[in-house]
């Protein structure tokens, strides 16, 4: 990426990181502000990657989330954070572990290169296979996994009540 795109990346990344921290660690209007910051940052990053429609849809999705938090019912139904609760603490710790694992994969995967009988391969070649050749099957499996995980989370909360 050239200098302009790199500068835009760092600006929008800073907005996304600040918004992510606000969303994860605060409540109420600060949380809504965090979501709005992430919306601007993510949409800018998508636009920086020449994915204009994804940027537009991201703005719509995050804008709806922000409105959901800002409406009177959303704020009223949101209690203050409590430090207790073994499951919540376990979930927060697991979120940290997930971040560490993904960050390790990002740093190591970018510089990975090896050799096999058929020749050399790298993370870029793996990306070509997954996203380029088998894009449809990868999309189907990953979408099923993500939707299932999110539905399980919501279902668990419904049952807990």
């Amino acid at each position, binding site marked *: 990426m050239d200098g302009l*795109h790199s500068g835009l990346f760092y600006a929008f990344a800073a907005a996304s*990181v600040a918004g*992510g921290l606000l969303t994860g660690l605060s409540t109420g209007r600060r949380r809504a502000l965090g979501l709005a910051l992430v919306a601007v940052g993510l949409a800018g990053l*998508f636009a920086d990657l020449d994915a204009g429609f994804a940027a537009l*849809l991201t703005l719509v999705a995050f804008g709806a989330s922000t409105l959901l938090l800002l409406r009177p019912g959303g704020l009223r139904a949101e209690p203050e954070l409590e430090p207790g609760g073994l499951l919540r603490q376990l*979930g927060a710790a697991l979120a940290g572990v997930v971040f560490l694992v993904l960050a390790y994969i*990002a740093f190591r995967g*970018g510089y990975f290169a090896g050799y096999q009988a058929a020749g050399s391969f790298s993370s870029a070649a793996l990306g070509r296979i997954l996203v*380029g050749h088998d*894009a449809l099957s990868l999309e189907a499996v990953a979408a099923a996994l993500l939707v299932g995980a999110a539905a399980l989370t919501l279902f668990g909360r419904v049952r807990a009540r």
Partner: protein
Amino acid sequence: MSAGLVHFLFLGAFLFAAGALAVARQRSFAGAVAGLPLMFGGAGLDLVAVSRFATAASDQLAGQAFAVLLAAVALAFVGVGAALNRLEAPR
């Protein structure tokens, strides 16, 4: 320093973990559902970045299509969260 694939992957990982943290820490439906678009957004950013940096020029739309799909799913979950929040609100 020029931004590359690793930078985007690192940022996507952070957003995914922040969304997971938001879902885990909140007790209300509205609070928990608000973390889901963050997780979907992080995953979509990684996919678009991989399709931009690690695939041929003709295949770049594959990752973008998946990011659009993820944003639509996140929007659907926001709708589900709004409905659940309305259902549990005292009349």
